[in-house]
């Protein structure tokens, strides 16, 4: 049993490995002019729908939703990253190591939600400028809420990766399905209340839904109590996904052990 200090050291080393891997796979320039431009263009594209709807309120709603959801785009990228561990053969090393493989997965890609906080906040700032949406001083708290949403989505993405653990070729499909479900049903473009009750129940247990309401409330000058309540709900949702993801991960790992194909890049 490793001590907390060792766990922390392991977390630090693993997260540094993730950053090093990111820096090997891309450059800051490529990230900035390739990926970030793509994210902001996506926000502008969806927000512009508000213009043709002829409603200032719709523009504001779409602008906030489609900027905040950028953190989700950054974070769900961990699904193929995690599944890639199996394809590259690193998975067996993770599993035989004395440290927790879940901690390894989560710390290795922790840079994704951190970058997501930047992309999302910067995106919101740019979109507000493009669509002339006034920003007040509460904007300084937005990154905190986005961080909470990012972590919640991170736990959800971990669960999806755990489900797809034995089907790594479906990594990209899982990624697309994960973020498009959030974009569609979690109040990004249409309020959750628009959907039938059965869909609303699912939206409530998905990440982003409550955190996004908190961001809208914050920028709309709502009382701190309302904002905190939605933050708490987002945190509960995230914790739930983490628990579910851990359970599924252990089960998927058990199945792979039983079949003896942990070294094999399954299809």
């Amino acid at each position, binding site marked *: 049993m490793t001590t907390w200090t060792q766990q922390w050291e392991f977390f630090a080393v693993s997260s540094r490995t993730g950053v090093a891997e990111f820096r090997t796979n891309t450059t800051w320039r490529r990230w900035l002019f390739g990926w970030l431009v793509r994210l902001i*263009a996506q926000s502008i*594209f969806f927000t512009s*729908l508000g213009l043709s709807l002829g*409603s200032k309120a719709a523009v504001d709603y779409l602008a906030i939703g489609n900027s905040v959801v950028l953190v989700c785009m950054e974070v769900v990228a961990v699904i193929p990253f995690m599944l890639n561990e199996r394809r590259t053969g690193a998975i067996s090393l993770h599993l035989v190591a004395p440290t927790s493989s879940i901690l390894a997965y989560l710390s290795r890609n922790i840079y994704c939600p951190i970058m997501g906080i930047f992309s999302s906040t910067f995106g919101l700032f740019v979109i507000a400028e493009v669509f002339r949406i006034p920003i007040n001083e509460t904007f300084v708290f937005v990154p905190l809420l986005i961080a909470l949403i990012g972590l919640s989505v991170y736990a959800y993405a971990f669960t999806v990766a755990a489900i797809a653990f034995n089907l790594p070729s479906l990594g990209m*499909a899982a990624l*697309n399905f994960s973020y498009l479900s959030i974009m569609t049903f979690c109040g990004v473009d249409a309020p959750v209340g628009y959907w039938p009750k059965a869909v609303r129940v699912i939206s409530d247990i998905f990440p982003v839904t409550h955190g996004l309401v908190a961001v809208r409330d914050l920028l709309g000058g709502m009382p701190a109590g309302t904002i905190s309540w939605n933050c708490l709900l987002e945190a509960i949702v995230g914790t739930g996904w983490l628990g579910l993801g851990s359970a599924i991960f252990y089960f998927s790992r058990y199945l792979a052990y039983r079949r003896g194909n942990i070294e094999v890049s399954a299809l």
Partner: protein
Amino acid sequence: MSDILSGVVLQLRLFRRVPGNLLIFMTVPFFSLIFLSAARSHGDHVVSPREILAPVLMGFWLVGCQIAEMVVSYERAYGTLEIIVAAPARFTWVVTGRVLTVALLGIVTLLEVIVMSRVAFGIAVTVYHPTVFILGLLATILASAGTSTIMTAVFLAVRGARRYVNTLGYPFYILAGVLVPITFLPSPLRPLADPIYLYWSGNVLYGSLGRASIRDPELSLVMIVLLACASYAAGNLLIRKVIDRMRASGEIGLG
């Protein structure tokens, strides 16, 4: 002709063996849900043909990008690009067969959108100008294949270009007025729609769903076909040049 057919057969087999390549067809219904729910939930806006059919044009663009990626990046990764280039069948004809197959599959996105509009929103898609619509669709398939050809050439020529292809989609959708008319764009940006086939395709396809007569359908159809021919010719020329250069330098599989 047999080389083109080989490309068609190869592509169909690839789709059958690796269903993950059909991923785009999973994303289109979501775009439909997003656009229509947003249009319906904000105020009393009447859903427009643009919001209904935008995912179809996005689908054509996405399949166009994906096939270029499959032809170059996947083949490079599997180490089969050298074999394809060395084979007696002409590479450009095989590519033509593959891109045409994928572009034709773009029609599936139209079916998806029709079903999603009906089932989830009770919207019956009615085509008031069927001839223009069908001609527009056929021209769009050609243009999508042309775009794929030019992208294949760019992927072959420029190392790492595919990393940026993901970036191109949304700016092109915005500039071509795929979801929102270009009249909402700042005026200096509007002429940039002209060389993008999606803009002209939108004009005929969106217009076909309205009762009113379509503005200059002939011009739009001619423009789509011209852009298709131009991108196909330029793409083929570039592919040949790049392949010749890579044969000489021995670096086909690298990149």
